């Protein structure tokens, strides 16, 4: 029973990372119809920023979190300007470009961190919160989930309460109609990928003290983000968040009781199943061709 409750708690905490990582993918696909394969590497760069500036150079953790967000946002904006924008009419071309970026970023990380074993970042927040004598939540994880929820809430506010956010949603629902209404899709794309990349950077920064950092960590991130995106419904942000929570719980449970690999295999199978049975996902709308 204790293990069960503990697993639920772990699952919820995990869902914050999933949601942050997936949201960028959803945003970029929504407004530009391009699958950013390098999205996992954006998260990876976020984590490396923490390792380099916090763990190596001793800068304060919170400062490096902001630095990670800024850095990754910058990379995202560069990708939008020089790759996705010229490729706007060729989604496959955009995807392949993003694969190119993936390689480049992995090499950058290898160059910065050197080869060898994965890097660890000692948790800046030490200690563990113990609830009801049995449930243990390290403060670091508590901090992560709190920041994740805050960031998602801010995003939610931005998308539903501001004019710019409204425009982003309009473009991701129907690009042509939005253009006809005078929305500048280029500007919207820039904002969307900026926000998405910022979230990815934040996800990486939050993950850094809790995971093994290496140049290939983006691979698992992108698989998770794909699963969450598809299950939640391509282009649907609330769908992605709900799917993140569900999938994180599912994954944590299967990992705890069976193994991490089985958890990912079943996740992938669920995703294929969703693609067959309900390509629009749990919350998605039909994507106009």
């Amino acid at each position, binding site marked *: 029973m204790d293990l069960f409750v503990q697993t639920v708690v772990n699952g919820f905490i995990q869902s914050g990372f999933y949601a942050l990582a997936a949201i960028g993918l959803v945003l970029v696909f929504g407004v530009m119809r391009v699958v950013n394969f390098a999205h996992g590497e954006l998260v990876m760069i976020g984590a490396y920023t923490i390792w380099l500036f916090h763990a190596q150079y001793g800068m304060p953790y919170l400062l490096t979190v902001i630095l990670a967000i800024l850095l990754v946002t910058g990379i995202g904006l560069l990708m939008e300007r020089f790759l996705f924008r010229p490729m706007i009419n060729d*989604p496959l071309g955009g995807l392949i470009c993003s694969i*190119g970026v993936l390689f480049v970023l992995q090499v950058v990380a290898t160059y910065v961190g050197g080869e060898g074993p994965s890097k660890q970042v000692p948790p800046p927040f030490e200690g563990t919160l113990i609830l009801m004598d049995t449930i243990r939540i390290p403060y670091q994880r508590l901090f992560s989930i709190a920041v994740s929820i805050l960031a998602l809430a801010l995003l939610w506010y931005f998308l539903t309460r501001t004019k710019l956010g409204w425009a982003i949603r309009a473009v991701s629902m129907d690009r042509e109609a939005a253009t006809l209404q005078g929305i500048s899709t280029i500007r919207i794309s820039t904002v969307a990928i900026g926000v998405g990349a910022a979230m990815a950077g934040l996800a990486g920064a939050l993950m850094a003290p809790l995971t093994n950092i290496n140049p290939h960590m983006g691979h698992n991130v992108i698989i998770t983000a794909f699963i969450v995106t598809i299950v939640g419904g391509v282009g649907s942000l609330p769908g992605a968040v709900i799917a993140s929570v569900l999938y994180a719980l599912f994954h944590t449970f299967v990992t705890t009781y069976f193994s991490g690999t089985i958890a990912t295999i079943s996740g992938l199978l669920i995703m294929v199943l969703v693609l067959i049975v309900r390509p629009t996902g749990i919350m998605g709308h039909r994507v106009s061709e």
Partner: protein
Amino acid sequence: MNSSRKFNLKVALLLVLLFAGLVILPHFLKYHQQDFLIFLTINILVVVSYRLVTLTGEWSLIHAVMMGVGAYTSALLSKNFDISFWITLPLAGVMAGVVALLLSYPLFRMTQFYFLIGSFAAGEAIRLCWIQFIKPFGGTGGTSAIPSPELMNIDFLEPIPYFYMVLIIVGICVYLLYRIEKSRIGLTLHAVHWKGVLAESVGVNTWNYRTLAFVVGSLFVGIAGALKVHYIGTVAPKQFDIGFMVFILIWVIVGGYRTFYGAILGAVVLSIIDEMLRGVAQLRPAIYGATLILFILYLPGGLESIPQKIKQLFRTRREEPV
């Protein structure tokens, strides 16, 4: 008709030259270069079989895993059941074809973006199974001590004999794939790609043709997988991951996917460049990545379009480029 015949001749000539060159080449090479040559030859079969899959217009991300299916099939059968390589090699192809056939039912319900992601997910699930189920696959480390082919007294542990065997088998497979593309089936696959509805209206069962291309392409890449692991002696999930899949994509895109020889050109040129970058191994992926981006942005037709571009430069401006 005339233009296409001339074109065939050009391709044939290129292939013959390539073949002749490859026969004498290994004797001038160092040991590790001979290794490289074997892998390059196998990779030619990989890209050419991938080309068949893409003829219907769907870019799958599962081709590398299909290669692995063939590789594991042949490796495990020959190691655990002591079956001869000459039997497990075709079985590798058959197994990859069967797996492709089974996967075609769910995957071909999707198109474009969804197909791409779906094929990626299905492939990754298969690959993770190799990691998860240590018996029989061997887990992350894979399975080693895969027996070498046996034929008369030839020592296939040596690179040169193995290379000649690979050259013959790949030569036959590539020729067969070439025949398929130039046949009625190739024409129909083009039809399915460019206007599926119209093809359907004159009686083409588009689903069947997509499946055909997928299954046959997988079959041949399964053979390529077997050829590869019986040389290395080890089969592991890492060999067939998304990273390798991306290399296949890069070869095809940099070479060009409008003609049959484009993909081969891409695989050969990039592999040679890659080999020359041995000294800066760490940077190799980045150079690959940057090359890919530059080609997509500035030479979307790939290497194969260069001769035409040069021709265009010399041509008088009697017609506006379309």
